[in-house]
């Protein structure tokens, strides 16, 4: 996949480029806002990773201008600010996700993959199926191999979030933001305990723990 990185910090940029390249992506890098904007306007990238604060043209303006030109390019904001309002500002300007510096590379990679695999068709499915697990989004029912599983509303949302991203690594932070709408880091293992409850209800084999990264629901059964 073609990724455009607009980041003025040379060390960080090199670190991101190296990491993404190792994971099979092709990365173009711009160190300034204006040159980044020109590259992004060419329309040959699948994802834009952009810093909030850039020389010549700041990230917010870059993305706003891009969106005004009807670009649907997925955008991941990086920010040093990490403040309360900065995330909302970033998302309002047309960003699709927001990551505060400093971050673990696994976190960045998971979000990049999630944005790249985001379905472009906006049609809402009425049900999701992963392996023999089926989720009816209208009746809010979950069955595995035909047997109905009784879930709490929160467990349902958690499972839905995972099932919408089969075979993708989903980090703890992504779950906190996406399922709980928590934008801080609880010291408590709330995600872990909810995952383990969910596992015990749907069967332990479906949701896998990816060490040091997060969780993944497997659509394709691996023979272990």
């Amino acid at each position, binding site marked *: 996949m073609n990724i455009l990185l607009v980041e003025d910090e040379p060390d960080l940029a090199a670190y991101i480029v190296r990491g993404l390249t190792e994971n099979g992506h092709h990365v173009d890098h711009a160190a300034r806002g204006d040159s980044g904007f020109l590259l992004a306007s060419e329309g040959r990238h699948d994802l834009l990773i952009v810093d909030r604060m850039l020389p010549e043209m700041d990230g917010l303006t870059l993305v706003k201008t891009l969106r005004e030109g009807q670009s649907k390019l997925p955008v991941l904001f990086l920010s040093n600010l*990490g*403040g*309360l*309002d900065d995330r909302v500002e970033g998302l309002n300007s047309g960003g699709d996700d927001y990551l505060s510096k*400093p971050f673990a590379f696994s976190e960045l990679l998971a979000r990049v993959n999630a944005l790249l695999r985001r379905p472009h068709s906006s049609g809402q499915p009425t049900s999701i199926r992963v392996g023999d697990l089926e989720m009816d989004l209208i009746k809010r029912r979950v069955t595995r191999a035909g047997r109905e599983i009784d879930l*709490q509303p*929160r467990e349902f949302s958690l499972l839905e979030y995972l099932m919408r991203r089969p075979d993708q690594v989903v980090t703890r932070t992504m779950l906190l933001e996406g399922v*709980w709408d*928590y*934008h*801080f*880091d*609880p*010291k*408590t*293992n*709330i995600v872990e*305990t*909810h995952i383990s*409850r969910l596992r015990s209800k749907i069967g332990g084999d479906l949701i896998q723990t990816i060490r040091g990264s997060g969780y993944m629901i497997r659509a394709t059964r691996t023979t272990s």
Partner: protein
Amino acid sequence: MRLGQLLKSASFRLTAAYVGLFSVSVGILAGLIYFLATSGMQSEVRTRIAADSTALREEYARGGPPQLLQAIAERQRGRLVGGLDYSLYNASGKHLFGNLPVVPCKSGWVTFTGPPDGDEPEGELEKLGVLVTPLAHGNCLLVGDDIGKVRKFGSLILRSFGWVFLLTATMAVAGGIFLSTRVLRRIEAINRTAEAIIEGDISRRIPRRGVPDDLDQLAATLNRMLDRMTSLMESLRHVSNDVAHDLRTPLGRLRRSLEEAGRTVSSPEESRAAIDSAVMEVDGILDTFGAILRIAQIESGSRRSNFCRLVLSELVADVCETFAPSMEEAGKVLLTRIQPDLAIRGDRELLVQSLANLLENAMAHTSAGTVVTVSLKRRPEGIELSVADNGHGVPEAQREHIFKRFYRVERSRTAAGNGLGLSIVAAVAELHGARLSASDNDPGLKIGLVFSEAA
């Protein structure tokens, strides 16, 4: 005190302006009185002359020149100074009486000037206002009076006003200088104090005179402001001390473990473990930084602009539901007593984080088997959210300190956490105008937040 400074002072300028204004009004008043008094006197003189002329003409009509001359003689008898001047002359200009100059005999007023007789202003000639009255047989009667008297009176008025003005102006200027000097001296004191504070003597305060006037009040207010700033600076210094101290500890630990790893690690597995633990340590430090920044951001008050009405009952139930499994796993019980439909105005994200911090605090500092009770209820003073545990509690002397940054109850120093969780709660409470309290749950600790209810 220099004269220049005095002249530039606001109070002196104010006085000068008042003196100027006063002078102008005194001038106008003097002019007005002068005009009214002199014109009044003048018309009175003329009336008298006219009345006398009429009377004399009648005498003449009754008895001719002899009776007229007798009447004039009667008027002048027994009189030394003052009174009117009379002249009578015939058609050929020969005087029958008096010595006023001869003018063409036409009815009307004329003015004569003559040698000074002592009652006119210095250096001016005697001035006579004369009424000419033609009589039968070509005779001409002149009746006049000294109008210099009127002008003398006028100049007397002006002179008195002049003296009064001079006296007043002198007093005003002297008073202005006196008042300005006093005010200046006090402003100078404020100035000197400010200079001393700029120079670094932060403990200096403006001396007060103990008189309840506005300058003293200003001094008191400024002193209060200085006290507040000093205490803020003090707390800032405290915080930066604490930050430095609290970050030194984990950084020192990190350095030690890295050094040790560099010396002892041989296998890839060992080095991986060492790196992992170093990353964890760094994450902890970053976390502390994040919390400090967040507190600063909350304290700036900028979040207040996106306050909205929210049902606190739902928020609390939701957070409790999220934390219950973790509580259970840690061998503790989470009880909730939530009165439904209680709403406040606030920031959802910050309130969630605060409640999460309170729950985590209760979880981190109690042992297994503890019951943590979250309750939300309407009280007369507002909506009270409380998180209570039945653990070993916090000694009363330490209770008021637990919301301070980096403060940690001695016993819990070893427990995880950065000592900022409750500080965030305190900052959020402050932002929401909520009353925060820590009390004895007998046994255990109870932390309460009282919000005002939203309509």
